[in-house]
């Protein structure tokens, strides 16, 4: 493992380390400025002299191009993504950015990098594929809601996308709980507005309001939890919190504080019972935005949970298993079951995907639970820390590939949405006849979500189950060789989470397949027999998702290794 370079902000190496964020920042500025470029002049006060300052007025042809903001955003996010990818491929330079007073602010390592990849990748895909989803026409007297997006509002849309990415990357890098929280709020506020972006429609604003109000309450609770932790530890630095937790972690104040913080992140990952707003939000938001919520935003929440639970309230603090073990186990079980059951009867594909996203959150929580089940402190020899790495690998892998097939599914819906809504299952009717390849893509996303081989979703679920089972089985394999006798009950109870998880994936097949059946079996809805809306960008994005889903499913070894590396870098000890 390479050495950690510690630098202060704006010193040597800072630009390299922060290059993705700087790219995003630049992109954001461009997004604000470029669409406003025009023949505007500035009249020097008191004179008739007008100096052209290129802002406002009649805009130039290129700056009034409705696709311009989307291109800028896509290129910005895409290059940020590529930048991270490049950095990643160059080996993991670990950089710790500290304040002048020595407080750790940001840590750049494999773990944060991979989350940045998830965030930027998801947002770049969403931005790129929204490009022709937002049809541009002049605002007439009678226009459909889709036609309302002139390029000025498009600029807003993409600015929010980029700020969202910025906020998320702050979350990824933060080494201070409060910094993390600020990043989280930045991203959250962006998503609130993005969800409510369809302000000309009832569902749009309603979903935005619900998402905003419930999200605010959750982050209010979380912030209060932070304040309690601060009151207890005197600092919100992870390193300090972890050290303090090891000493006096089991008192009431930190326990409740951690619980409150969990609420804040729980809302982001849409864990039960904080998930209620999520289906409404997904259903009301535009599909690409919903896709971002289900992937990047969820990854952000999960990242927060990981930081909180594994770094701060680390399992070795107590008798080997984490204090939050039961709590998280219950949460995982309830979340995955609830999500699947609710999705089972849902007729709205977007709600269905939302509930499925809740279920996937449950799977990830189960994985996280497994990490807490075993004392993975490096001091304990043997399989333990390797097991924890394995579970974390599974979690990261799941988050990464989720971008491909979850977002992909939403992108398919987005095409239908721009045609006139995708809020009923029957909207998908006859997709196989209308555009076979799109139906095949959707089919691949669905079976991947269900966890059917050979798709990426299967591999990710397999990894998660493997992680859980590995923790549950522990060292028994070796001990059996030495003469140990074990029964089912000797396995850690997280094994039952794995069982619940496989049963849940069996339930989930039911509703995923229903989508497939509708696409391949049912006739198109009336008035939707014709070809689907055109637009190559969204199709390219879907193709990218399909390829990722299939290729990772068939040959995911390198991604597993990348995730493993990232997982290893989560903790100095690992």
């Amino acid at each position: 493992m390479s050495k950690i370079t510690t630098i202060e902000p704006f010193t040597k190496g800072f630009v390299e380390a922060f290059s993705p964020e700087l790219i995003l920042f630049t992109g954001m500025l461009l997004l604000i400025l470029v669409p406003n470029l025009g023949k505007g002049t500035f009249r020097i006060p008191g004179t008739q002299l007008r100096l052209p300052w290129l802002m406002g007025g009649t805009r130039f042809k290129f700056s009034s191009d409705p696709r311009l903001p989307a291109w800028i955003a896509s290129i910005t996010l895409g290059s940020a993504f590529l930048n991270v990818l490049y950095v990643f491929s160059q080996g993991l330079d670990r950089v710790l950015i500290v304040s002048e007073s020595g407080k750790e602010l940001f840590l750049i390592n494999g773990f944060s990098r991979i989350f940045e990849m998830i965030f930027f990748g998801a947002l770049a895909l969403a931005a790129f594929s929204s490009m022709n989803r937002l049809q541009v026409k002049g605002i007439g007297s009678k226009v459909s809601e889709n036609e309302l997006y002139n390029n000025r509002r498009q600029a807003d849309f993409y600015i929010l996308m980029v700020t969202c990415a910025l906020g998320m990357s702050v979350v990824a890098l933060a080494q201070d709980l409060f910094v993390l929280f600020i990043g989280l709020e930045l991203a959250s506020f962006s998503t609130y507005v993005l969800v409510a972006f369809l302000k000309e429609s009832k569902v749009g604003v309603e979903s935005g309001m619900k998402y905003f109000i419930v999200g605010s309450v959750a982050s209010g609770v979380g912030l209060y939890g932070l304040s309690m932790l601060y009151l207890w530890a005197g600092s919100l630095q992870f390193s300090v919190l972890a050290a303090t937790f090891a000493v006096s972690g089991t008192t009431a104040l930190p326990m409740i504080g951690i619980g409150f913080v969990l609420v804040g992140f729980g809302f982001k990952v849409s864990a039960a019972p904080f998930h209620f707003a999520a289906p409404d939000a997904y259903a009301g938001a535009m599909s690409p935005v919903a896709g971002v919520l289900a992937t990047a935003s969820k990854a952000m929440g999960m990242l927060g949970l990981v930081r909180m639970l594994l770094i701060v309230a680390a399992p070795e603090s107590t008798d080997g298993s984490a204090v939050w073990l039961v709590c998280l186990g219950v949460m995982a079980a309830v979340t995955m079951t609830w999500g699947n059951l609710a999705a089972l009867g849902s007729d709205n594909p977007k709600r269905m995907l939302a509930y499925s996203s809740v279920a996937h959150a449950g799977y990830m929580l189960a994985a996280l639970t497994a990490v807490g089940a075993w004392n993975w402190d490096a001091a304990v020899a043997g399989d333990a820390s390797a097991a924890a790495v394995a579970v974390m690998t599974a979690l990261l892998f799941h988050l990464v590939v989720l971008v491909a097939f979850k977002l992909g599914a939403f992108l398919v819906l987005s095409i239908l949405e721009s045609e006139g809504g995708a809020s009923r299952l029957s909207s998908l009717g006859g997709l196989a006849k209308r555009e076979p390849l799109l139906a095949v893509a959707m089919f691949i996303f669905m079976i991947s979500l269900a966890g059917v081989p050979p798709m990426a979703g299967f591999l990710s679920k397999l990894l998660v189950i493997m992680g859980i089972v590995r923790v549950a089985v522990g060292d028994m394999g070796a001990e059996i060789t030495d003469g140990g006798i074990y029964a089912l009950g000797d396995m850690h109870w997280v094994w039952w989470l794995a069982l619940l998880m496989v049963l849940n994936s069996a339930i989930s097949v039911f509703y995923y397949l229903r989508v497939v059946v509708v696409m391949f079996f049912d006739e198109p809805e009336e008035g939707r027999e014709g070809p689907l809306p055109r637009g190559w960008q969204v199709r390219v994005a879907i193709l990218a998702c399909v390829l990722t889903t299939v290729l990772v499913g068939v040959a995911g070894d390198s991604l597993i290794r990348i995730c493993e590396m990232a997982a290893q870098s989560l903790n100095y000890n690992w």
Partner: protein
Amino acid sequence: MDDWISMPLVGFPLIASIVLLAFVSNTNESMRRRLANPIRMATLVFSLVLLVITTGMFFQYFGNVSWEGISFNNYEFLHRYSWMESLGIHWSVGMDALSFPMVWLTTFLLPVTIIATWNEKNGATYFPILLAMGGALIGVFVSLDLFMFYVFWELTLIPMFFLILMWGGADRKYASQKFFIYTFTASVVMLLGLITLYFFQDPVNPLDYAGSMTGRTFDIPTITQHALMENSNGNWYLGTNIQKILFAMLMLGFLVKLPAVPFHTWLPDAHVQAPTGGSMLLAGVMLKMGAYGMFRLPISLFPHALEYFQLALLIIGMVSLVWGAIVCLGQTNLKKMVAYSSVSHMGVILVGIATMQPMGWAAALFMMFAHGIISPMLFAVCGAFKHHYHSMEIGAMRGMAKHSPWLATSMMFAWMASLGLPLLAGFVAEIMMFIALWYFLAAEGWSVFWMVGPALVLAVTAAYYLWSMQRTIFEGGDETQPPSSLHGEPVPDIANPEKLAMLILAFFTIVFGVMPWIALDMMHDWTIQIFEGLILPVLGNFKGGA
């Protein structure tokens, strides 16, 4: 190149079908109609290539492999390529005398199915899907890696799902989903069992082909090798309880696939709604995946658990046998009846396994093979019946012997083969199963009355088959009008490709009925190898020995 499996048998059909499908889905309706014939020919040729390869393997033309005398846990054409190193996953293929007959059967049924359903609608997509189905099925049988096995195991669901959904009967929507979900549910439980098994390996002692991240391996030969190990306390491999629970979890997946009562209700629905080609492959090969899996994994890995569950398996098997047959009697739908008869025949396999006798196992293996030839013919007949008379109800068309002598003859033949007429393929397995069963029961001191139930099934089987023939082949003649579903069209006989398919199937039914040793010898050899190489050394003395 000496890897005759990976690309030629598995990769080639899968890739070819994906290429064909991708090509077809980019074309319009009329183009697709024009493409149907060339694609049909292409898939036929492809599948014949597969058949030539496997037949060549049998005749030792390829690879010069003698299928008899492969010792336990050794495989021919064994090739391992690293696939997902971090998890200990390899692309690992190989065949032994257990899998080879199944592989041959698959490659044999594939062209026959294509021929039998020569005029299926939407041929441009139908035939490539059949080809994909074949590739996936072969993949299941040649996999020597748990992960790979599971991947192919599930992969078979997808083409079959589409076959039922796109070409099935009126209620295909329900049936295809039920089929998928039901078997998927069972196999995810199996997956959890596999993973738990995986982690019960000992990572401390160096394992072959272990994953870099996990320290364990998915390699079936390596894991099977462990089954022979005892720990220092003289305990069973993995210990009593763990073996039992893993055995049960794996068996659940296989029992549902087989299917055994009470996990069988997906089968009638799937069969009744599936198109002929789907039914043929489903009954011919897919059900056997269950039995194959049992032999390959739980039995080879957990002999002690098998001993523990012997009685349970026996009861499940007997119940399947009897229940399936009795339910058949109560059916009025031709295809449903045939579907339930499959349940009954799969009961034979289970009972054969439960006897824990080489003869019983050989009976089970031969039943897998024989039923794999007979049941496609049954379904081909059902399919032709439906195709020509637009009805599946027994009695919708009578006096077939006059109107459609070919179909009547095929039906008579298939029905007779299925009810276990001697010198047709099914008989040998049945009689061997009965001998092994009584051998076990007698050694355990059971009364002969326990034999009567399963044996009376033969009479019940005859009853429903004869009853259905009475109402289809016989009677009627001039007096009975053709079914109203024909709308006054003349009553047709089956078309030439169907005739050809029936002839091929009938021919091989006779061949393997008269000369069972062609396939049985290697199966026998496999049972002897596993008994002397695994069961007896591990179990020592167990129930059923005299």
